[in-house]
């Protein structure tokens, strides 16, 4: 019995497992940064969609429909790669000489100097931005709808008080918009949380990658077979982890909605 406990304590706190626990930070960072950026892009997109200048309105509509028309995975892979290549192309215009261009045999980068090496932190930031871009398109629609559900009387009253257009927008319109937007934004947040499981596609050693490595049959020459294929157990842990995150987020958004709904007529909720 004691041996068992000692084994499990030792097994669950070995170096690889500690790295696994530490890799949760990538997932949490990507979710929080992606969520924040999604709201920012959503606000920008909704403002564009509401614009009186039609080219801006067109840009807003195209943004919110194109990004949602293709799978999130595709955009999630495409954006970091395209951004990297864009930067490398810019570097190439500055750094490459005809000799280095001629010396390069691979298809990309144009020359050896214009190579931008991306590590985990860079990929993590790019992944967060692409999460923000993809789900910002969803948030655009949510916020656009919410802006239109704010009662007209409130805005007219604000204008009657002599507020400028900017003051009406920031103090009344966007302030009151949240109560209508929160249910939709909570959905977007759930989507972002679920999309963070894709980080390993960008070579980030996240929880999914580590679960795969840890669960693979573990053979040590000195001890023999430590365990056979345990991958499904590790994935089960992640499955439960994501369900718990969903549960907690639901509670948190419920509390947030109650708080945002203070002083607003209950018909809004």
């Amino acid at each position, binding site marked *: 019995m004691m041996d068992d406990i000692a084994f499990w304590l030792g097994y669950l706190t070995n170096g690889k497992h500690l790295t696994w626990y530490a890799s949760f930070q990538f997932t949490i960072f990507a979710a929080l940064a992606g969520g924040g950026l999604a709201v920012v892009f959503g606000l920008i997109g909704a403002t564009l969609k509401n614009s009186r200048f039609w080219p801006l309105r067109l840009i807003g509509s195209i943004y919110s429909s194109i990004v949602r028309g293709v*799978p999130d*995975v595709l955009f999630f*892979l495409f954006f970091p790669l395209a951004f990297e290549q864009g930067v490398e192309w810019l570097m190439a215009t500055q750094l490459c000489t005809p000799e280095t261009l001629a010396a390069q045999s691979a298809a990309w980068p144009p020359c050896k100097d214009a190579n931008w090496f991306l590590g985990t932190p860079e990929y993590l930031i790019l992944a967060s931005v692409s999460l923000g871009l993809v789900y910002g398109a969803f948030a655009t629609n949510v916020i656009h709808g919410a802006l239109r559900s704010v009662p007209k009387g409130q805005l007219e009253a604000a204008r009657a008080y002599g507020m400028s257009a900017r003051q009406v927008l920031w103090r009344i319109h966007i302030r009151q918009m949240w109560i209508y937007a929160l249910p939709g934004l909570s959905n977007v947040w759930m*989507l972002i949380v*679920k999309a963070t499981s*894709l980080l390993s596609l960008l070579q980030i050693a996240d929880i*999914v990658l580590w679960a795969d490595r840890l669960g693979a049959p573990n053979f040590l020459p000195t001890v023999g077979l430590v365990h056979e294929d345990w991958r499904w157990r590790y994935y089960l842990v992640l*499955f439960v982890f*994501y*369900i718990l995150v969903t549960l907690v987020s639901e509670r948190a958004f419920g509390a947030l909605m109650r708080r945002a709904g203070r002083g607003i007529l209950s018909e809004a909720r």
Partner: protein
Amino acid sequence: MERFLAELALFAPAVVFNVYFAAASVPLGFVMAVFLALGKNSANPLISRLSRGYIYAFRGSPLFIQFFMVYSLALSFNVSLWKPMGISWFVLHPLFIGPLVLVLNTAAYTAEIFYGALRAVPRGEIEAARAYGMSQRQQFRHVIWPNLIRLAWPAYTNEVVFLFHATAIVYFALPVIGQQKDLMITAKELFERDYNAFLHFSVAALYFLAVSLVVFFLFGLVYQRLMRHMPAAPGMRFAPKWIR
């Protein structure tokens, strides 16, 4: 331009796999979702709890993890179960596991849509049916189901398009066998060959967009047929809410 056409031809066999995954999982997922939605609405607490838990679990966790979980589970039973039965080539094949997981996933999402529609069926109509002396079965067949499917159809259309988009990650979780590559794997391999991200990924995106539009069109036709008794059809929204 020629390059673009050649690219389109390269992706044509790949889109078949995505369409296969979606087409194979839609019918089964539909049937399973109807039972799950009825189960969630059931008066029996056990059935209701179970359906509710199933729907919550599969809507609350990423499809990517579900793929890995089911595939590794299937792998761990390989030596003890599938091998002796001689069906491991079938059970472990991505063309079987892929639709299996997609069915489990889409059933949960669709069940939630159907459950919402079930709650929205007008009370008065059910009461009228009961007043006519209809049995439970007759009530469902003649009153509840026609209402439910009409209420749920627009949201269900979205779910099917979303399911089609979800097929993009099948081969990121499951092994690629031979030349059986879907759109994403094709795009990724072509990208690794010549590093032209803009061409390959855009063509893959075009294919996804095109098939999504076809799905919208076909499901719109079905919706029109369903709503043919209505004086002025409200019309299918072609830019619906994509949230699920």
